[in-house]
């Protein structure tokens, strides 16, 4: 009892083949879109790669890129096959390729779905990577003379300016790192020495922030220094001056940005997956209908098309048996109709002798 059986007349088969040809070409375009989305995501991630602690997240765009290229290739082949399916004679060319092609397309469609789901599930890993990366970036902000870290200051400044954020979760994060390099500190000055001695690690900590934390919408010129004491600047009370610095943390800002990008990409990929599924179903119907026509022998007759020949459970058992039997191909068979070669007969003699001795 077949799953999803539909009967096709000759005209319907030809129409199905034509429609599938068109759909396959549209799928080539969507495959190119998928490829483009992968490239876009990769570029976006690489823009702020320096503030991410691990590059593992790059496997999402790589997967999208490979799936997109595979989509273009598979659907191009599919369009050629469907074009030939309209004619029963030309179908014979593709007869042996059809089944592997459908299995391939099925796995590929599963990959597309996996890609879409990855886009949604990557948030946790991204969050950790961003927070760790930003923490490192802030620690190495002052190391503009150390190779490998010399661009972190610029990157972090541009990040804070562009995303309108300060620190990791807030501007107070800057109070806990030394962001002024020792090269620019006058070690003979008593005030500097006092600050260095005031904490265990000998770091020069201040209640100040870099200029990139300054908000452009503030009505007063930016107050960067002595932020925690209320009597620092005339008429400045840090509680009542919310506009002076950016309030948002850069961790949150970047996470929101990337989550937004990935969610829209994930939605697009899901829609592409649904479309691919539709194309796959159509090709399966076409394949089974054409094979049944060949089996019936009359190209003009009606034929049945289905998704699965038997029910789901029976098909699963059948395939499982095939896989089990693949491993048995070198074992000796006890079927009396098979002519056992003389090598096996010679081997049997020593075993009988062994039995007698034991």
């Amino acid at each position, binding site marked *: 009892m077949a799953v999803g059986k539909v009967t096709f007349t000759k005209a319907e088969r030809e129409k199905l083949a034509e429609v599938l040809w068109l759909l396959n070409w549209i799928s080539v375009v969507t495959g190119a879109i998928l490829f483009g989305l992968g490239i876009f995501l990769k570029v976006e991630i690489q823009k702020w790669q320096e503030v991410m602690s691990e590059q593992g997240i790059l496997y999402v765009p790589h997967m999208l890129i490979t799936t997109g290229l595979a989509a273009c290739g598979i659907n191009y082949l599919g369009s050629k096959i469907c074009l030939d399916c309209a004619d029963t004679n030309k179908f014979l060319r593709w007869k042996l390729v059809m089944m592997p092609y459908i299995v391939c397309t099925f796995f590929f469609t599963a990959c597309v779905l996996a890609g879409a789901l990855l886009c949604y599930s990557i948030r946790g890993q991204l969050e950790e990577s961003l927070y760790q990366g930003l923490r490192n970036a802030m620690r190495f902000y002052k190391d503009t003379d150390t190779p490998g870290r*010399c661009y972190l200051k610029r990157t972090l400044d541009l990040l804070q300016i562009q995303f309108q954020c300060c620190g990791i979760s807030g501007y107070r994060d800057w109070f806990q790192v030394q962001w002024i390099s020792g090269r620019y500190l006058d070690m003979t000055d008593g005030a500097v020495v006092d600050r260095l001695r005031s904490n265990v690690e000998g770091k020069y900590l201040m209640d100040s922030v*870099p200029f990139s934390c300054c908000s*452009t919408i503030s009505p007063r010129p*930016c107050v960067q220094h002595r932020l925690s004491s209320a009597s620092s600047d*005339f008429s400045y009370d840090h509680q009542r001056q919310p506009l002076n610095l950016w309030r948002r943390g850069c961790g949150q800002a970047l996470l929101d940005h990337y989550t937004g990008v990935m969610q829209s990409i994930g939605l697009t990929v899901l829609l592409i997956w649904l479309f691919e599924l539709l194309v796959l179903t159509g090709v399966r119907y076409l394949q089974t209908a054409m094979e049944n026509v060949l089996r019936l022998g009359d190209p003009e007759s009606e034929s049945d098309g289905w998704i699965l020949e038997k029910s789901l459970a029976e098909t699963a058992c059948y395939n499982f048996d095939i896989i089990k039997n693949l491993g048995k191909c070198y074992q000796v068979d006890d079927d009396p109709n098979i002519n056992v070669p003389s090598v096996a007969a010679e081997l049997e003699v020593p075993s009988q002798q062994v039995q007698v001795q034991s």
Partner: protein
Amino acid sequence: MTLLKMKFNQQRRVRLAQGLWLMSWLAVTGGAFIFCLGVYLKTELLRRDEVMENAEIHVVPNILMMVGLASMGTNWVASRVCQDSLDVSRFPRWKVPLLAWFAMAALLCCLLLTVVVLSYALQGSLEDSLKVGLRNGIRFYKDTDVPGRCFQKETIDRLQMEFRCCGNNNFKDWFEVQWVSSRYLDFTSQEVKDRIRSNVDGRYLLDGVPFSCCNPASPRPCLQNHLTDSRAHYNYEYQSEELNLYSRGCRQALTDYYMGLMNSTGPGVLSLFSCVQMSVLLSMRYLQTAVEAAIASENPEGESEGYLLDKGVKETYQDVRAKVLGLLKFGQVDPSEDASGAAEGAKTADTEKAATPTPAS
């Protein structure tokens, strides 16, 4: 003696009409592209219009938009003429509109050339406009509580950060204005009082700049205050410090940006488009003359001649001049002229004029 005469048989006329139809649609898309270019340039100029004092430079995008729209319409008309040109019954109704069409197409080509020239010529005006606008912006930077000026601070800050520039010509422009509002100055402090007394106008001037002048590429955290005093900061040399602030002035930065925008798109795109327009014009002239000759002859399917000008350039110019002057004399009573012989009268008037120089020439 006709100018650039060519023979056309029926097949060549058909080919010409088809080619011209295709080219006119190409010109329509070109016109749409030029319109979009004009819109883009105008939005870019409008985005920064708070630091521009006058809007003279806006004439460039305005002309681009007008030319774009006009060329779309003109070339669409050309495509319709092509469609009708092979139908003997429908072509004659285009006879008069085609004269207007030729005038319009020639005008468009001239306007395109004007735009290219203007985009170079108006650079000085743009610079002056920016100089005054930026000077005002810097002066009103502190007035965040005055309606009408309260956004100057945000505008100037964003401008300096986006274009990586500081001040009008350089960062020293900030030393000459009071950019810290008096609301945030402690008048009981001796330092503040000294500074205010140190100049005639009683302004609080300091050798410091706003945070938006800071260069993120500098290896040291930004120094904003006491910039001229090398002793005020450790390991700081005022004369040799280059990376701390942006070295470019905003006037130069903005001028370079807009000139780059206009000069990168201008000559290339516009010369290409005017070539297409010229070829549409010439092909239309050939098509018109060839089809009219074919219709006038006994055999509309046979060969005919197409040309650019009926007579030579000089004679055509004199003819046209005479016609225009005849039109201008329309209101006057002229005994030698009568309504049906207006053309001959123009010719005799023309020969008279050729003999005697007129005040108009």
